[in-house]
C-alpha cells in the first residue's frame, strides 16, 4: 500500500487535534455536571439530564444545524464571540466544539456512574479526619473515580474521531481547515478513483479506535488494581 498523501495526513492530524481539544475542554464540565447529577438535588435536574443526553438522541445533522444557528457568525452566541475575535463556524475550533458536544453525553454517563459507585461513607470518614469538602474531593473522590474519568475521556475521544454529521453541517468539509478523517473518507468516496485513499484512511481510523480502546482497558485495569489490590 502506498503512503498517505499530504491531504490525507492533514485529515488525520486535524482529527487528532480536534478530538484532543474536544476531550480536554469537555472533561471539566462533564465532571461538574456528572457530579451534580449524581449527588445534588436541584430544580430542573431532569431537564439538565435530558439536555446533556440530547446529542445522543438527535440526528447529528440537527445538532450541527442548531450549532450553526447558535454559534454561527449570525447566531446569538457566535455573534458575541465574534466581537471578541473568536470565530467557530467553518473553523477547526468549531469542529472541536461539535465533537465535544457529540461526545459529551458519553463522557457524563461514564463519570456519573463512577461517582455513584463511590461510597459517601468514605468521604464522611475523610471529613472526620479534618479534610474540607474540596480536599475530600481531591484526595478521596477524584482518585476513586479516576477509572471512570479515563473511560469517559477515551470514549469521548473515540466518538470525536468518528464524528461526522454535526461536524460537516456546522463547519463544512474544507481540506486543511475542517476536513476531519470521516469527512475526508466521505469526500474521497464521492470522487472517482478515491477508493484507494479512502481505504487507507479507513484502516487508520480503525487503528486509532482500537488503540484508544486498548489504552482505556489498560488504564482502567491499572486504576482498578490500585484501588482494589492487595
Amino acid at each position, binding site marked *: 500500500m502506498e503512503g498517505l498523501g499530504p491531504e490525507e495526513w492533514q485529515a488525520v492530524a486535524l482529527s487528532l487535534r480536534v478530538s484532543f481539544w474536544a476531550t480536554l475542554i469537555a472533561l471539566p464540565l462533564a465532571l461538574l455536571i456528572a457530579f451534580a447529577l449524581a449527588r445534588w438535588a436541584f430544580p430542573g435536574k431532569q431537564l439538565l439530564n435530558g439536555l446533556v443526553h440530547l446529542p445522543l438522541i438527535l440526528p447529528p445533522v440537527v445538532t450541527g444545524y442548531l450549532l450553526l444557528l447558535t454559534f454561527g457568525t449570525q447566531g446569538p452566541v457566535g455573534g458575541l464571540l465574534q466581537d471578541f475575535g473568536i470565530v467557530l463556524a467553518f473553523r477547526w475550533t468549531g469542529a472541536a466544539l461539535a465533537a465535544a458536544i457529540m461526545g459529551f453525553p458519553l463522557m457524563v454517563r461514564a463519570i456519573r456512574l463512577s461517582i455513584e459507585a463511590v*461510597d459517601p*461513607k*468514605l468521604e*464522611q*470518614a*475523610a*471529613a*472526620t*479526619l*479534618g*479534610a*474540607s469538602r474540596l*480536599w*475530600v474531593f481531591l*484526595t*478521596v473522590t477524584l*482518585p*476513586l473515580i479516576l477509572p471512570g474519568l479515563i473511560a469517559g475521556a477515551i470514549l469521548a475521544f473515540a466518538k470525536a474521531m468518528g464524528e461526522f454529521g454535526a461536524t460537516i453541517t456546522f463547519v463544512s468539509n474544507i481540506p486543511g481547515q475542517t476536513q476531519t478523517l470521516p469527512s475526508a473518507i466521505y469526500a474521497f468516496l464521492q470522487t472517482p478513483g478515491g477508493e484507494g485513499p479512502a481505504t487507507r484512511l479507513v484502516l487508520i481510523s480503525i487503528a486509532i479506535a482500537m488503540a484508544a480502546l486498548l489504552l482505556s482497558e489498560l488504564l482502567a485495569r491499572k486504576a482498578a488494581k*490500585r*484501588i*482494589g*489490590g*492487595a
Partner: protein
Amino acid sequence: MLSVEVKHARDGFNLDVAFEAPPGITVLFGRSGSGKTTVVNAVAGLLRPDAGRVALKHRVLCDTKNGVCLPPNRRRIGYVFQEGRLFPHLTVRQNLLFGRWFAPRNAPRAELERIVDMLGIGPLLDRRPGGLSGGEKQRVAIGRALLSAPDMILADEPLAALDEARKAEILPYFERLRDETGVPVLYVSHSAAEVARLATTVVVLQDGKTVKQGPAAEILSDPTVMPAGVRAVGALLETRVTAHHADGLSELDAGGIALFLPRIPQAPGERVRVRIAAHEVILSRQKPTGLSALNILPGTIEQIRTGEGPGAMVSLATPAGRILARVTKRSAQALDLQEGGSCYAVVKSVAIAPGDVGGPAAAS
C-alpha cells in the same frame, strides 16, 4: 470532658439525650435502635440535630440556639467506624497519615512509630486495605483516627463486624488506648462484655432517652438497667492475678477470696476486671460441699428484686464486691431468701467468658 445534649426526630423516632463523658472510655450502651449511632453522628458533625448543644473541653462544636454547628472537618474528633472505612486507593501508611495533613500545626502530634507499635501494624504499612483482614483493618482505622491529633475518639461498634477471635484481638488495643494515650473515647456498644472490659463510665440509652449514667461497675450491677436484656446484667469485680496453675486455670484474688477461671493472658500481679453474668450464678444457703464449681463467695443479701416474669434478681454483698444472681422466684421462696440474710454465691470457672476479663480501667 464532653457534654452532649441532642434532640432529633426522624421517621417517628424521637431522640432526646443528655450526658457528660469524663476522661477515659465512656460507653454508650443500649440495644440496636436505641439511638446510639445518631448521638455519635451528632457529636462527629455528620448529622445536624434538630436542637442541642455539643461541647468538648469548653469548645462549642454545635449549639443550635446560637446557630453554631461546625462541620466534621473542624471538630477534631477521630471516628472509628464499624466497617473501618479505610481509603482503598491509599496504602496503610497513607491512610494512617491522612489526618495529619489536616491537623493544625500546633496540635500535639502522636508519633507514627508509637501508634504503629501500639497497634502492631508495622508489617502492614506498605499494603493496601483491600488485602487486610477485618481485625487488621480495624487496627489501622484506630491508628488513623489517633494520628489525626483528635481531642476525642468516637467508636461506633468497632467490633460488631468481627468474629469472636477478631474481637479478642482488638479489645486490648482499646484498653491500651484508654490507659496509654489519655484521649477520651466515646464508645458505642450493645455488648455487656465490651462494657465490662472497657468502660470507665456507662451511659445507658433506651428508646432514644438516657436512662442511666455513671461509673461502669455501678451501672452494670444495677438490675434496673435492663435495656440490653436480662442476660447483660452482671457484676464487675476488680481483682488481681495471683497465679497461673499447671492445670490451665488462673487464680485471681478478689478482696481476699480466690477465684479460678480458665487461663488468662495477664501476668501475676496485674489487675484485671472480671464480669460475672447474673444468670451464671447459683445461690446456696449453706456452704456447698461436694460441688464441682470452684468459685464460692460468701455474702449477705442486700436486695431481692422481682418483676413480672418468673425471675428474681438477688444482689449479694461479698468481700469480693457486689455479686448479682438471677434465680427464679420459686427458688427464692424455696430457699427462703431474705434481705439481710446470709448466702453463698457459686460460679463455675468456665462460666466466666474470656471476653469478660480485661485490664483495669484507668480512672478506677
